[in-house]
């Protein structure tokens, strides 16, 4: 029985410190690159079908119990580039998990199914005729059941979320509790630092241990440096294991007839480009999008303590459809380090006053349906994420910012901090239009963060305009699959984890059928 391998806590991972030989040659039916939302799901779905699965993760293995609940430390330990990954100009922080479990370890647990209008666009514009709402439903249902996805209960609507709810109600806007993959949320608000007591159902505590229970093996500290192929067929990967001190520990070669790339929308195209594979159409790395977000904070007359309670409680979907604006507003808790970076109240005393009153702040996260204008590529040995907020998306950003300000004011906020590089404060409704319309789309003017990189190896029926087919297999290299957010043909407005889980389940099914 494979369940004999089951552990009720922790995860069996081969780390760099466990490796004694400088050269490793391994065999598998499937090698999975990355252990986040896509890789973990594929690993489990194939391992439980009896496939020999190897998962290679570039980041470290950090057990939940070692999470510090200190955000700056978590950034250094669990995030890509120690939390410092940015676009080329440096004005957009692009956050990704870089640890066993990937971004699912450090996300806020928000679960949305892919909006129907997004699937419609994919069918119409990219020939993805199999991706209908009906055909995707069983996949959504499956992953939601596995991960205990449920709507926030009353106790999971924190004080900051109740303000947002109140404001939306006053404006007559549609506001809903989030669905989250949380088991008995302890309301610590430390989601972005990893859930220490294993309540968020990240891949670290769900699909990965399940995959291991079915015989999958996981290697951390192991960066895949090249995909191997022969006559248009994937044959495996080569990788390097690196110790905590940055020194190489071992070279690894995995021979496998199926290779699944699930390293995320930045690393997956970089690996393909480095391997010079699947890019006859010159599409690899192109069409990158990332939901550039603003955190719009506002001061309320009463204490809010944005760091207490569930991090994300409710969202406003009034404007989600492109014809309604194409953006979503999400209530968002935050700790004091995060709050110190969200606004520019002025230098010296004004900033210290702002922080001194941090307990009165509540925040809204804006997510826009950005166009796929970015590109991920190499510049020598350096990775480059060429992405700037496009002029075509700037109106959406401004609409989202205006709506956030209106909502805060309706909820009783005394002042709304416009997240720019200069002090801009909205105090009344009549301030909103002139102040926001006065903004220019220039680098480093808005304080933006991306939590959702996506779309750099897009899926489509036409090999001339896409990298992978609907099955997840690359058009050009048989046996080479992609199962992460890089295959999304357009940005999807909402948090993408459920979309990735569902597509990865579907792709795993295709792989199993092809073997």
């Amino acid at each position: 029985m494979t369940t004999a391998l089951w552990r009720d806590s922790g995860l069996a991972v081969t780390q760099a410190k466990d490796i004694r030989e400088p050269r490793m040659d391994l065999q598998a039916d499937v090698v999975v690159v990355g252990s986040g939302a896509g890789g973990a799901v594929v690993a489990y779905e194939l391992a439980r079908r009896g496939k020999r699965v190897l998962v290679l993760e570039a980041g470290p293995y950090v057990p939940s119990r070692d999470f510090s609940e200190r955000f700056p430390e978590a950034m250094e330990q669990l995030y890509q580039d120690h939390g410092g990954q940015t676009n080329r100009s440096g004005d957009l922080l692009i956050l990704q998990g870089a640890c066993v479990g990937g971004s699912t370890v450090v996300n806020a647990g928000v679960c949305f199914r892919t909006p129907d209008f997004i699937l419609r666009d994919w069918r119409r514009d990219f020939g993805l005729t199999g991706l209908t709402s009906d055909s995707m439903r069983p996949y959504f249902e499956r992953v939601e059941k596995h991960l205990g996805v449920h709507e926030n209960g009353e106790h999971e609507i924190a004080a900051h979320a109740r303000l947002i709810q109140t404001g939306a109600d006053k404006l007559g806007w549609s506001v809903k509790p989030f669905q989250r993959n949380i088991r008995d949320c302890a309301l610590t608000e430390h989601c972005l630092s990893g859930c220490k007591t294993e309540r968020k159902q990240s891949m670290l505590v769900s699909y990965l241990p399940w995959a291991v229970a079915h015989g999958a093996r996981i290697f951390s500290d192991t960066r895949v440096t090249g995909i191997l192929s022969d006559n248009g067929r994937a044959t495996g990967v080569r990788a390097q294991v690196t110790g905590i001190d940055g020194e190489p520990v071992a070279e690894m070669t995995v021979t496998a007839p199926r290779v699944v790339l699930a390293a995320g929308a930045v690393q997956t195209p970089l690996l393909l480009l480095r391997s010079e594979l699947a890019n006859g159409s010159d599409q690899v790395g192109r069409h990158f999008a990332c939901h550039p977000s603003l955190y719009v904070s506002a001061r309320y007359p009463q204490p809010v303590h944005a760091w207490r309670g569930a991090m994300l409680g409710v969202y406003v979907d009034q404007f989600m459809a492109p014809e309604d604006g194409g953006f979503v507003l999400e209530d968002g808790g935050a700790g004091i380090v995060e709050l110190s970076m969200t606004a520019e109240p002025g230098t010296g005393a004004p900033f210290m006053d702002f922080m001194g009153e941090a307990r009165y702040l509540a925040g809204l996260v804006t997510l826009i349906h950005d166009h796929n204008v970015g590109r991920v590529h190499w510049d020598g040995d350096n990775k480059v994420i060429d992405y700037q907020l496009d002029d075509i998306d700037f109106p959406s950003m401004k609409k989202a910012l205006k709506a956030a300000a209106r909502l805060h004011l309706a909820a009783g906020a005394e002042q709304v901090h416009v997240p720019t590089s200069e002090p801009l404060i909205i105090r009344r409704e009549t301030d909103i239009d002139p102040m926001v319309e006065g903004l220019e789309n220039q680098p480093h003017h808005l304080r933006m963060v991306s939590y959702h990189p996506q779309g750099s190896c897009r899926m489509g029926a036409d090999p001339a305009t896409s990298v992978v087919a609907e099955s997840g297999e690359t058009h050009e290299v048989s046996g080479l699959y992609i199962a992460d957010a890089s295959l999304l043909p357009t940005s999807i407005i909402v948090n993408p984890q459920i979309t990735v889980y569902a597509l990865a389940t579907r792709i795993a099914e295709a792989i199993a059928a092809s073997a």
Partner: protein
Amino acid sequence: MTQQYSAPPGPEWLQQGLARRRFLQWTLAASAVMAGVAAGGFFWLRRSPLDQRRIPDWAGELSAREFLLFDRCRRVLLPTEGRDLPDTETVPVVANVQRTLSLLAPAPRQQLSQGLGLFDNAAVFRHGRRFVDLDDETARDYFDRWGRGLVLQRTLATVIKQLVYSAYWRDERTWPALEFDGPVSDRWGLAYLGNAPMPEDDGDVQTGIPE
């Protein structure tokens, strides 16, 4: 290895700023500073009396000028007088900045170092002395001007502020005054729930995928 080095910002972000309508507000002297950056150093610029100061042994990953700049910034950006907050003499702000910078890849670290030099030295052209020698109010005004300035200026003002702010507020001694709770799971005695239960009777979805 968890890192892949990011490419440093290309010249376009600087050009983008210089091409904007506020170009004329950017003085010829500042352009000379840019040329100085391009030439690779500031050795010809104004020295500060602070340059004689001994740099602490623990600050080995910062250049002497970087240390002086961040040490000046903590005083300018985090005035704690009259507030129920710990003084920046007691919170290791510069050491924490050093820790963050030590995690940067070589290329952006080098770019940042040049940018910090520019920020410090560009004050010479308006104030006749480097940033580290400005009085507190002038130094704060300098930050505010740069926050409203060109792309490069906004970038540097924001980056320096965020490095210093996070270096201060990450220290738990700053939390009580703000009523920030910090880590709570162990303090609250929360139970660890362990791994999620293995799915039972896990049949395939099988809706049929076009091959």
